[in-house]
């Protein structure tokens, strides 16, 4: 059979160059998720600020980064910013682009989670003398967390696949490495099948993890340890 080589498929399945790409995809997802979460939380809080200007900045951020394609954002960061003297390496540009973009989506998810906590909860905490910061940390966030987990999980699934977009700025993740091998070996179908296999594997593993997290948080109420309350 000349259209499809099983031996080629299996060879590339364990090819170190491809496996390295898989690892890159994983850490790219993890690191941009962590930064995206931190920035997303900040944006979500900004959008609840008492100061109109701060709120507007938050709205503007989400509008900008949700309203333009990641592809465009990456190209601007990597190839257009040097024009004004701001230079990033490929890895830096990929991480910044992914994190900035992810933050816009996560900000909306976090904001919805915060809004799902009834106002009465904050009022009760305020009546006990808690400051706004303490209320956010000890009362609102732990409750918002449960609402945030399912859409957050879906967003991670999306992010695993979205990392492939960074191949356009030659970030050596799974897709880019697949394409590089294709240029050399011409085994187009086999190599893309290998890439698809690994994306499916990653998203399936994550689905499994996500279901466990949702189950654990759905059943028993989160037991907050009072030892780190201050």
């Amino acid at each position, binding site marked *: 059979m000349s259209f499809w080589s099983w031996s080629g498929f299996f060879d590339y399945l364990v090819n170190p160059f491809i496996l390295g790409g898989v690892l890159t995809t994983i850490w790219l997802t993890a690191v941009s998720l962590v930064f995206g979460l931190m920035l997303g939380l900040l944006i979500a809080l900004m959008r609840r600020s008492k100061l109109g200007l701060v709120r507007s900045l938050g709205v503007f951020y989400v509008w900008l980064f949700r309203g333009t394609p990641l592809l465009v954002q990456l190209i601007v960061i990597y190839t257009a910013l040097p024009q004004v003297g701001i230079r990033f390496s490929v890895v830096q540009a990929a991480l910044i682009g992914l994190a900035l973009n992810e933050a816009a989506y996560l900000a909306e998810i976090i904001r919805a989670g915060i809004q799902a906590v009834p106002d*009465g*909860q904050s*009022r*009760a*905490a*305020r*009546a*006990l*003398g*808690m*400051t706004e910061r*303490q209320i956010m940390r*000890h*009362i609102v966030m*732990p*409750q918002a967390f449960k609402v945030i987990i399912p859409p957050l999980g879906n967003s991670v699934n999306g992010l695993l696949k979205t990392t492939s977009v960074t191949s356009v700025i030659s970030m050596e993740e799974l897709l880019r490495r697949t394409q590089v091998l294709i240029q050399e070996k011409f085994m187009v179908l086999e190599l893309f099948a290998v890439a698809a296999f690994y994306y499916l594997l990653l998203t399936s593993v994550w689905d499994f993890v996500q279901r466990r997290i949702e189950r654990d948080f759905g059943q028993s*109420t*989160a*037991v*907050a340890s*009072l*030892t780190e*309350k*201050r």
Partner: protein
Amino acid sequence: MIEITGVTKYYGTYPVLKNCSTHVSKGEVVVVCGPSGSGKSTLIKCVNALEPIQQGSIKVDGIEVNDPATNLPDLRSRVGLVFQNFELFPHLSIEENIMIAQRIVLGRSESLARKQAMTLLDRVGMSGHAQKYPGQLSGGQQQRVAIARALAMNPKAMLFDEPTSALDPEMISEVLDVMTNLACEGMTMMVVTHEMGFARRVASRMIFIDQGEIVEDRPTEAFFTEGRNPRAEAFLSKILHH
């Protein structure tokens, strides 16, 4: 203990409270009643600085509530507030519900906060439920925990906003009993309620609010026996003979 003088409050351009004046002395229990939407909850929230006022003055224990220099968290921690819907924190156990503000607002040690929680749970008859979560308790039990949570801060006064209105009839008395005991122990209390039996037994004064105005403010006995303002009359006949 609580001095309310000429208080006017607007939500936007709508006046919710109009030139309200009254007071609650130390150790006194005052019951506030009035039709739905008359401004009772708003008055309670203003006393605890949960809502700002536009005119007048509210003093709690000598401290001006509306003064920008007043430390609001500190003031609030000195006035307990009990809500109609309990508002226990669902993600914390009963014990933790009572401990958390003691820990982070008053800075009490874990062991002291726990000891205080146990003492108060015992006082409201809930000591067997310390490790449960709010969702596992009945409404009456949750409200008793909410009272314990407010008392844990050692407040100088307690405010109650319709504490039994969300309860099934058979649970009302267990909450009123806790409140009656509290009153007997000398707690200063301002209670919004339509439980007139409780009011007659416990309150020293009755306040009737209608459309944001304090229409009646009289000693309890006089309120129930003497002639009243027609608006108060109409309201009372509705809730006493429903």
